[in-house]
């Protein structure tokens, strides 16, 4: 944000602006930028998902829209969705129906404020950065429940109930898994977490030699993030083969696009958090590359690699049943996450890393 404010001061007429006006302008610009990035990532990742799925399944994926490998497919999909009729079921609860998708999108969008893209380039430099991210992600659950209930559709209600239970449960190992990193860094500020991993791949938080419990924490975080985004083996709330489409069955047009956008924004968000917290953020794997490649590009590349991993897992594994999902969370992942927290602490004391 300081970069933006400095930029505004340098612009003609910038000297005369008060600090508050500068802050607000900077915030608005940053928010617009985040929204554009989010929309772009939704478009790019839908295309990437379809291509990855295609090649895994021995076929091509989109090939015709846009001459080269159907790159314009997602753009065409977006345009098509915008042109659809907006249907609200007659018996649906109108206000909840309309607010649900907004909350879902909001929950994904707000968390992007604390992601550090490059040194000094973060929308909101919060001392509570990581905590803020997890807190704000909970809004998605509220939106989900509202959509499922307001649809006046029993199948949608099923999807919403499952989804809410799943997302609430999996927030615990998600947050617990990042605590060892916070202990190692000593701060919740996202910029500090990244700065502490300077020095190439050896210094990244994932390194099992430095602290094996951090590696276990990474695995826990990754699995919990798949469950948190309702993807892959944990997509019970929206299982196509059982519930038709789960909580967003009754949505069409732009409202459906909100759910769609938020799914991919969430996906990119958790991948970025994984890269930021465990994989060294904007630092390149080899120190000499830091000067050559812009740090934001390295960060985004890491995010894309994590997204690819996510997609690979989604197209390989079958779905986990709801009660097994709960069993996995409460009886397997939470104990392991707690052990990793305690173990990381002991390790750090033992090896004087504190």
């Amino acid at each position, binding site marked *: 944000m300081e970069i933006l404010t400095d930029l505004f001061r340098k612009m003609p007429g910038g000297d005369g602006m008060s600090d508050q006006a500068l802050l607000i302008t900077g915030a608005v610009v940053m928010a617009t930028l985040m929204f554009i990035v989010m929309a772009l990532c939704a478009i790019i990742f839908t295309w990437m998902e379809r291509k990855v799925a295609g*090649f895994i399944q021995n076929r*091509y994926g989109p090939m015709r829209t846009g001459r080269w490998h159907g790159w314009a497919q997602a753009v065409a999909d977006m345009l098509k969705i915008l042109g659809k009729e907006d249907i609200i079921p007659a018996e649906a609860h109108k206000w909840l129906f309309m607010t649900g998708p907004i909350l879902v999108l909001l929950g994904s969008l707000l968390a992007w404020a604390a992601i550090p893209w490059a040194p000094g380039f973060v929308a909101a430099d919060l001392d509570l950065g990581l905590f803020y991210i997890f807190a704000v992600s909970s809004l998605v659950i509220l939106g989900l429940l509202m959509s499922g209930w307001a649809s006046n559709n029993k199948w949608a209600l099923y999807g919403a109930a499952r989804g809410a239970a799943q997302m609430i449960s999996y927030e615990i190992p998600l947050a617990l898994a990042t605590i060892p990193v916070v202990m190692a860094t000593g701060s919740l500020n996202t910029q500090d977490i990244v700065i502490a991993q300077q020095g190439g791949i050896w210094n990244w938080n994932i390194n099992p030699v430095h602290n094996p419990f951090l590696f276990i924490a990474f695995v826990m975080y990754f699995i919990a993030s798949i469950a948190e985004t309702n993807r892959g083996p944990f997509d019970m709330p929206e299982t196509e083969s059982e519930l038709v489409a789960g909580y967003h069955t009754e949505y069409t047009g732009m409202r459906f696009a909100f759910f769609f956008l938020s799914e991919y924004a969430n996906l990119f968000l958790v991948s970025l958090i994984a890269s930021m917290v465990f994989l060294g953020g904007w630092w390149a794997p080899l120190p000499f590359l830091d000067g050559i490649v812009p740090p934001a590009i390295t960060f985004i590349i890491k995010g894309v690699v994590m997204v690819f991993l996510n997609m*690979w897992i989604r197209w390989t594994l079958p779905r986990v049943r709801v009660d097994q999902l709960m069993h996995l969370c409460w009886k397997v992942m939470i104990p392991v996450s707690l052990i990793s927290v305690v173990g990381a602490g002991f390790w750090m004391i033992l090896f004087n890393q504190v």
Partner: protein
Amino acid sequence: MVQYFADMYAAVSSAFIGMGITIKHIWTKPVTLQYPDERQVMPDRFRGFVHNDTTKCDACNICAKVCPVDCIYIETEGKAKDRYMTRYAIDYNKCIWCSLCTENCHTGSITMSHDYDHSVYDRRSLVYEFMDPTEQKIPCHRVTRIEKGFWVEPKEDKPKPAAKPAADKPAAETKPADPAPATEPETPAAEPPAVDDGGSSDDKGETK
């Protein structure tokens, strides 16, 4: 307790094995054919759209009778030597491409082509009329056909089929006499290639 850890290990290892298989497929060549640029070559016996060469057809009605869904419409007028065929149509809304009509045709006029992609916007266009009503009507009786210069199938000099299974009975042969190749040059170029399989079992020489 042991089961707990064994389950965890089994889950992770089977997931990794599965992921290994899927990642391997990313580098194998996809099996998709990019239709309509690349098309599959159809085998000889492929049952595509039915085509009737009306110059050879003599409205014996076998195809219409043998069709299980009654999709062939034949209209004739007159009797005996003055019998003429006025309409021959196949309704593709009903046709199931079973090729019973081609199998039982004794002149070989009806054949299965290799076409399969004739989508239309209106269901009525799927009724294919094979005869142009303004053109000359087609005579059905053999004598009239010879008089007017229409094609007639050559009458083969075969011994009367015996009641006992005789060794020279052509029904058991794999390659019966096939009139279609002998008359290929007569068909105009606009028609789709009439590929009739040599393995067709029924006796083409018999008339009913």
